[in-house]
């Protein structure tokens, strides 16, 4: 069987499978489908409106014409390229080396090279579809702001093909080399190292504007500063430069220049693909075999290779032993949960990305001149920070806490059969996740408050709010996770891979996220109200009526108590009578 026949067969089967998945939407809950549809339409509409207004305003800046807009595009595509590469590396590792389908394909009478080629295409699609979805309103707004013709969108769509192929090819080259030459047990450390270096480079090259620059209150000077600090994104050697330049040129009607950069991008994407396919001839099968043949990690130095327990194993136990009065069953569950989380590639890899983005967020807070501006602006920024931290917390709990109960899947019988029951399991998950998320968000809040130079009183208010919110959001996530478990995605006879991301994408996950967001919005609304009531009557925010704060805090406490206890008690009642 030749390559084309193999691809045609696989394409046919995958089209059929996709059609079945689409048809299966009819069987899904109407609420879930409606919520997702609303979210998609809402995102496109809101995204388009915000981008269009932004492009319009920036385009009107005196002396700048489209420079700021163009620079934003260069920056956008530079970050996007990095994210696509990272996303392709994670998905590529999974599809090329861990998937059961790949193992099956490697036993078929086809070349491993063809399997690699197919999986490269699959990786590109899986890692990049969201890019098209997310950037569609941006492209539409840009085109409309530039009053382009319909052909522009077709050209941009064609431009995106090599732009998504190139990071996929580069990501897969990296994965091929890593799996062939690096032991998988040190892979995670390498990934942490790369993330650290990435963030460090971002700090170095993307130095944010300083408060002093904004203090000048000269918008043009500040924008010049912005253009200066973001110059790293306009290096002609970057693929993101080619795609942005091509798009800008087509937007301006310079067809020749647009086509030139399109061809530069296309030829480089083809070259990257050629390199990855050529490398795969030598590295793919070797890497696959090596990846599935690795035992204990050895450095090759006899003294260093003497059997020792891995340090994190002992650390987990030492950490849990800090609470000597913890019940032995709870202790066992905590140790198990921490170990399983740490060893689950799909969990910690996304954890790294999540905190990498958080790091960039905190880093960029330096650019917000909190204490040098008006009090209204300062208060607005500090509450904006609370909002961002809370939304982050809601995402964190939905993504990482909600799937915990479902992840037990068909193993639930084992812990359900111990004489302490599933109630203890649920409570352990609640306390463990609450303590961990509270610690993370408290650090985030204190750091960001310090960077924004928020006064002590407000910092205390925000810090206590995020701690309370951590418990409530974990209560919602654990409770809804047990009330609407998604065992089918977690473990079936046909799958070895428990995928938390798939669990979250079900009805329960969507419901949990919506509930969490509603809770966050109400809490922030309640805390903002007395502050802005002070402004409304002409007073200063911090001098607003204290009873307003007291009332809002009582309301927030009661709401948080309800948000924690209602889903948790319903869930505890459910697991009591759960048929395992």
């Amino acid at each position, binding site marked *: 069987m030749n390559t084309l026949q193999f691809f045609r067969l696989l394409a046919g*089967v995958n089209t059929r*499978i996709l059609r079945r998945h689409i048809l299966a939407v009819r069987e899904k809950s109407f609420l879930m489908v409606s919520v997702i549809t609303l979210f998609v339409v809402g995102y496109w509409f809101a995204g388009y409106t915000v981008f269009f207004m932004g492009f319009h305003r920036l385009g009107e800046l005196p002396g700048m014409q489209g420079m700021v807009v163009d620079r934003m595009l260069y920056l956008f595509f530079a970050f996007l390229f990095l994210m696509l590469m990272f996303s392709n590396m994670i998905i590529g590792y999974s599809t090329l080396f861990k998937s059961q389908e790949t193992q099956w394909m490697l036993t078929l009478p086809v070349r491993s090279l063809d399997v690699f080629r197919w999986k490269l295409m699959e990786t590109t699609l899986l890692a990049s579809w969201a890019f098209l979805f997310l950037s569609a309103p941006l492209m539409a707004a840009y085109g409309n702001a530039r009053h382009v013709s319909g052909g522009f969108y077709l050209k941009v769509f064609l431009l995106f093909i090599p732009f998504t192929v190139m990071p996929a090819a580069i990501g897969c080259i990296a994965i091929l080399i890593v799996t062939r030459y690096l032991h998988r047990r040190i892979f995670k450390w390498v990934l942490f190292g790369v993330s650290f270096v990435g963030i460090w480079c971002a700090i170095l090259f993307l130095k944010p504007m300083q408060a002093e620059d904004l203090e000048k209150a000269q918008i043009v000077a500040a924008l010049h500063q912005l253009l200066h600090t973001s110059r790293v994104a306009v290096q002609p050697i970057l693929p993101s430069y080619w795609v942005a330049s091509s798009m800008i040129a087509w937007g301006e009607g310079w067809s020749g220049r647009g086509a030139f950069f399109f061809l530069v991008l296309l030829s480089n994407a083809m070259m990257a693909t050629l390199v990855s396919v050529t490398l795969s001839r030598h590295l793919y099968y070797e890497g696959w075999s090596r990846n*599935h*043949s690795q*035992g204990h990690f050895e450095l090759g130095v006899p003294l260093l290779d003497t059997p020792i327990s891995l340090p994190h194993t002992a650390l987990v136990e030492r950490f849990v032993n800090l609470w000597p009065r913890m019940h032995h069953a709870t202790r066992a569950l905590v140790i198990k949960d921490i170990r399983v989380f740490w060893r689950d590639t799909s969990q910690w890899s996304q954890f790294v990305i999540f905190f990498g983005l958080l790091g960039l967020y905190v880093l960029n807070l330096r650019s917000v001149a909190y204490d040098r501006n008006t009090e209204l602006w300062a208060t607005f920024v500090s509450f904006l920070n609370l909002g961002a931290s809370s939304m982050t917390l809601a995402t964190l709990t939905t993504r990482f806490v909600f799937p915990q109960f479902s992840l037990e899947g068909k193993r639930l019988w084992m812990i359900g059969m111990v004489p302490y029951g599933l109630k203890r399991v649920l409570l352990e998950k609640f306390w463990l996740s609450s303590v961990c998320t509270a610690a993370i968000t408290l650090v985030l809040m204190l750091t960001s408050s310090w960077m924004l130079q928020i006064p002590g009183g407000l910092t205390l208010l925000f810090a206590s709010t995020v701690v309370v919110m951590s418990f409530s959001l974990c209560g919602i996530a654990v409770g809804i996770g047990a009330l609407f478990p998604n065992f089918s995605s977690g473990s*079936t006879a*046909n799958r070895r891979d428990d995928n938390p991301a798939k669990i979250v994408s079900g009805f329960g996950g969507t419901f949990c996220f919506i509930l969490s967001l509603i809770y966050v919005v109400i809490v922030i609304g309640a805390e903002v109200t007395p502050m802005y009531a002070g402004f409304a009557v002409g007073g200063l925010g911090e001098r607003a009526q204290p009873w307003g704060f007291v009332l809002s805090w009582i309301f927030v406490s009661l709401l948080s108590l309800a948000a924690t206890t209602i889903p948790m008690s319903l869930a505890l009642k459910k697991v009591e009578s759960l048929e395992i």
Partner: protein
Amino acid sequence: MIRTEHLTKSYGGLVAVNDLNLDIPQGQFFAFLGPNGAGKTTTIKLLAGLLKPVSGRAFIGGYDIQKNPVEARRILSYVPDMPFLYDKLEPMEFMLFVGQLFGMGRAEVVRASDELFDVFGLDETRRQVIENLSHGTRQRLVIASALLHQPKVIIIDEPMVGLDPRSARVVKNVLKARSRAGVTVFLSTHVLHIAEELADQVGILNRGRLIAVGTIDELREVSGEKGELEDAFLALTRGEETASELP
């Protein structure tokens, strides 16, 4: 039909398969036995070309699985212990897909599938998507798909897990019939009576080494046990186990 020469595979410091030499002729039903962790699955993956040996070679139908993998796999069927199926396909769609991957024409696949569905009792499941099938039914479907392209060598890892007695009987009968028709069957199992019932030759692997190979009678003779295969197996592997593992 299946031949290994000094086949060796190690995981880090652990030698999972150690200098394995096998020669299984055409039409032989070979049962591969061994305690947990003996290296049976690793051997099977080496034979299927999924893993690369650190030294030695494996041949399927005369083809070196490392040097001519496509040719070797054309005449080979491998059924792993955790087989893969496309959940959203129907059984016949899956059979068509597999058949075409092996270069069979559509009409040929349909005809062969009809026969196999009849034999394996899969007729009633034709219009159901695979995700709705029970574990035993999925297992029967996997085995049926493995037989579709008339392989000359079948390598099968723990095929009876999850099968009800009737299905297990069907699988045993089909494999034995294929073996009599000239197909070489390499079956790895923990269920000793299956080996006793079906195998022409039995190989026992322990800690990566082939410690015994021969007919059931030859194994009884070597082990000094005259009872069932289980006694011979325990006697042969006793020296390798710790006292706590074997009372």
